[in-house]
Each structure stands twice: as structure tokens, then as C-alpha cells.
């Protein structure tokens, strides 16, 4: 029994989903290795080496891995598969792109977006936008799993440990796919996926200018900004702000949804938050059915009042 975690990073730092995936991997109770694939990712490797739960950090550092494409990353991972009983990756867009491709190469099954580990073969995953939970069993030699980060605590980095390092010189080039560019949406707020407080706005904000109210409130609270699909589609905010079944799943300490009706696809992305606040002028809005604190009223009056009293 041995577990491999595929680290997600941006060549500078480990993404926090990797730390949640490590917590999940600990539940498998077998030795854990972690692989960092990329180019010039020394700082990522340093962070990875401070993860006390990991036995060995494998580093595949080569220019062919610069673009982090599923096409060749999956081939590299496939070359490691026989050494591992489990291969885990965060269920981010990175992991969702990569691990099923690996499953295809190995012709084996994969359990995606798991939220609980029952035993080495048995996992729980949400289906139907989280309105049902499926318990699935994988009977594979190598069990492939993507892990929902919000369902597992983040493993904390421990600066004083120095995990063993192993270089990997296997080179697989992507022959048919190339990265033209990335357009990263920049902001200085906490990362949506692991923020302690999230303030989200919906169609009720009416336009991009008004959405600044949500951002102001988020800044007052040190929160990340989220949005409903309607708000993203209307162009108020970039796509990576979307919370829900087809966007990001978040579970902060405090989620404040404003001008969001609470469609099941939106609830799928936030209903496991610890405390939920809903602000909506429609007393019948479904979001009130899951909110701990509901305030009925006009957001254009309520947000300014909140801003002045916080």
C-alpha cells in the first residue's frame, strides 16, 4: 500500500487544495509520496519538503512540463502507477482535467470529487449537485481519486521538517497540445476556495458597477468574493468567481449571499459553509431555507448600512 499525491501549484507555491488532499490521504493510513511536476518550481519543492506527512517528494522538473498540460502529465503519472495503490489530486480544474485522462491511459476507474474516505476502497462522493451522496467502491490495483478540498482540513506546513527528495528524469512531451497563454484574473483578496469568509453577489446587483458594493463589503470583512452563475454570465465578474455545481465549491466559516435566489446549482457550491447569511428582497427566495440568518430587504440599502456599521 502506497499513496501518491499529485501536487497542484502555480510554479511559486503549492495550491491549498494540495494540503487538503494530504489530509485526505492520511486517512488511507499508508506511506505517502508527493510528486511536483513543472519547470523551475524550486519554491514549490521547498514547501512540499516541509510537509511532515509525506515520505518522499518526487520532482519532475523539465521544460516539457512548463505548461502543465494533461496530455503529457498523464503519461508521466502513468509511468508511476504500478508503484501506488492510490493516486490523489485535488478536484480543481487541474485535477479534473488530469486524473480522468490518467484513468483513460490506465483503463481503470476513478472516483471524482470525494468528500469522505471510508476505507482503502470505499469513498463517498456527492451526486446530483450534492442532493444525494453515493458510496462507491473501487476494485482497482491503483485507485484514482480527486478530492473535494472544502471537505478536508488543510494540512499545515511545518518548516522544520525536510522530507526526502527524489528527482525524476522521465520526459514526456505534449505533441498535440500547446498552451498559448493564461489569463489569470488578479485580485489581492483571499483565494475563494479556502477563504474563511466569502461574500457573494448575484443577479440582484444588476450591473458591474453595483457589484463594487459586494467587493467593498468583502474588503471590510477580509473576505473572498464569489458570485452566482447569473452574475458571471452577465459579466459582473470573471468566470472563476462562480460558486456552485459547475463552479467552485466553498465551505467557509461565514458565507454571505446577497441578491442570490438560491438555485440548487448555487447551493451545491456553498451549503456546507458553517454559517450562512442571506440578504434578499424576496422573502420566498429559496436561499432562506438554508440560511442561518436571513435578512429580507433591499441590498442597495442594506450593504451601505453594513459598510458603515462594520
Amino acid at each position: 500500500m502506497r499513496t501518491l499525491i499529485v501536487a497542484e501549484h502555480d510554479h511559486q507555491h503549492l495550491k491549498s487544495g494540495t494540503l487538503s488532499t494530504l489530509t485526505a490521504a492520511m486517512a488511507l493510513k499508508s506511506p505517502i509520496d508527493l510528486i511536483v511536476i513543472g519547470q523551475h518550481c524550486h519554491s514549490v519543492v521547498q514547501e512540499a519538503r516541509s510537509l511532515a506527512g509525506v515520505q518522499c517528494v518526487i520532482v519532475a522538473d523539465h521544460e516539457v512540463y512548463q505548461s502543465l498540460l494533461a496530455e503529457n502529465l498523464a503519461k508521466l503519472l502513468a509511468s508511476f502507477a504500478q508503484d501506488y495503490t492510490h493516486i490523489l489530486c485535488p478536484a480543481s480544474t487541474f485535477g479534473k482535467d488530469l486524473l480522468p485522462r490518467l484513468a483513460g491511459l490506465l483503463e481503470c476507474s476513478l472516483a471524482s470529487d470525494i468528500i469522505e474516505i471510508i476505507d482503502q476502497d470505499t469513498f463517498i462522493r456527492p451526486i446530483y449537485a450534492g442532493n444525494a451522496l453515493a458510496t462507491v467502491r473501487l476494485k482497482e490495483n491503483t485507485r484514482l481519486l480527486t478530492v473535494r478540498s472544502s471537505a478536508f482540513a488543510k494540512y499545515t506546513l511545518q518548516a522544520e521538517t525536510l522530507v526526502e527528495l527524489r528527482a525524476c528524469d522521465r520526459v514526456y512531451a505534449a505533441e498535440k497540445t500547446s498552451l498559448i497563454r493564461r489569463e489569470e484574473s488578479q485580485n489581492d483578496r483571499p483565494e475563494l476556495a479556502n477563504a474563511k469568509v466569502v461574500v457573494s453577489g448575484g443577479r440582484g446587483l444588476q450591473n458591474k458597477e453595483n457589484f463594487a458594493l459586494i467587493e467593498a463589503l468583502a474588503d471590510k470583512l477580509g473576505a473572498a468574493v464569489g458570485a452566482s452563475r447569473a452574475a458571471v454570465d452577465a459579466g459582473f465578474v470573471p468566470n472563476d468567481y462562480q460558486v456552485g455545481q459547475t463552479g467552485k465549491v466553498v465551505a467557509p466559516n461565514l458565507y454571505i449571499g446577497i441578491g442570490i435566489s438560491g438555485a440548487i446549482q448555487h447551493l451545491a457550491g456553498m451549503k456546507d459553509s458553517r454559517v450562512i447569511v442571506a440578504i434578499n428582497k424576496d422573502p420566498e427566495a429559496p436561499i432562506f431555507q438554508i440560511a442561518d440568518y436571513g435578512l429580507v430587504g433591499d441590498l442597495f440599502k442594506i450593504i451601505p448600512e453594513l459598510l458603515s456599521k462594520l
Partner: protein
Amino acid sequence: MKVLLALKRVIDPYVKIRVRADGSGVETANVKMSINPFDEIAIEEAVRLKEQGLARLTQVVSIGPEAVQENLRTALALGIDEALLVPCEQTLPALAIARVLKAIILIEKPDLVLLGKQAIDDDNNQIGQILAALLDWPQCTFASQLKVQGDSIEVTREVDGGLEILSAKLPAVVTTDLRLNTPRYASLPNIMKAKQKPLTRVSLEELGVCLTANIETLSVSAPKERKAGIRVDSVDELLDKLRHEAKVIE
């Protein structure tokens, strides 16, 4: 160029599902069924490629019960040229669906294959990627823009950090995200015309693929219900509760 897309029939996204008490799954009897919303987007994209003169032929394929005919006819009414149904009463695991799609693709030889990024019933988000690996084709998942440029495509992908633009050589697999396009509605004349379009059956036996996979659903249960909280009457009361009861803000 020939474009093939895969379609799944699912419980309509706006239906509130019911988990069966015996843990065997979700109630499907007398429940409204629809085309998986991401596959509607794939249909629209294929039709647009045809309208732009980029696609010569468009095909839709589905693996599922006879009732899927209804959804395939809808795809034809929306402008797809031909439909293929692989009749199958049982639900197949992702790997098996991908194998069936691969077998169809080896026969039909499309240049571009479109799938939804995820089926909204099992929320797997796997089949396009598995299929691309089985074929050793490039994959562009979560597409919000697709441009055909000679023998390659340029795809904008919606990823966690923003957008990513990839170039891939055809043939390739693309999975659709919600913002790729806005699907049209079928017009009445087109619904009538669709009745004349070819809908062919291909049996699983003919395709001869291995359908077993080493994944098994042991049970399906309802999640813990979140109990509704309280209504507050003012901003002051809200802040007081958040500070002193929930203790989530300073």
C-alpha cells in the same frame, strides 16, 4: 470537417430529486428528463460550426434506453444531421461509456468530438478526458470558446485561476462549459423536418466493447438536511448575531 457529439439523457436540472429510501439510488419514475445542459451546448456549437461552413456533417450519439430517441430527435430538430443510438437499459460506468464512444468514433472518424464537461446527474466530469486518452487525442476541457483554424483548434478554457488558451491538433476532444454559447430553441418546422432525418441504432454487441469496470455504487443516501435558521429584522440585529451568537466576525 466532421463533428460528433455525445448526449446523455438526465433528470431535468430544475427537478428536485428524491433519494429512494432503500439506498438503491434516485427516483427516476415519472420524473421529467432532459438533455444534459452541457450537451445542449455541444449541440449548439456543432450546429454553429455547420452554419459557418466549417463542419460538413454533424452527428449526435447517445448510449441509453429507447426513450433517448426523444432527445436525439430534439438534437436533430436543432440542426444536427444524423443521430446514433446505442440501446442500453442499464447504467454503464464512465470507462465503459468512453469505450463505446471510442468504438463509434473509430467507425465514424470525426475530426472533432464534443462532450459536455459533466453530466449533471452523477457529476463525474470524466468521460471526455478518458475518451481522449483512449484515443490518444488531445483534450480541451471546460471550453468557453472554440475556434477552428485549419487542422487545429484554439480553445479558451475556464480554469480555477481565470482562463487558459490552448491550441490542439485535430482530431481532438473538447468538453463544453456553460459559457461556450447559448443554445437556441427548436422551431416547429424544424421539429417536423427532424422526423425525416436518420436515427440509426448500433448495438453494443456489434461494437464488441468491454463494459465491465471496477467501480461499484454501494448505496445512495440523502445528505444531512441543513436546518433553516432565523430571520433577523435589521442590520443591527444581523451584526449582533454574527458577533455574539455565531462569533464569525469581530
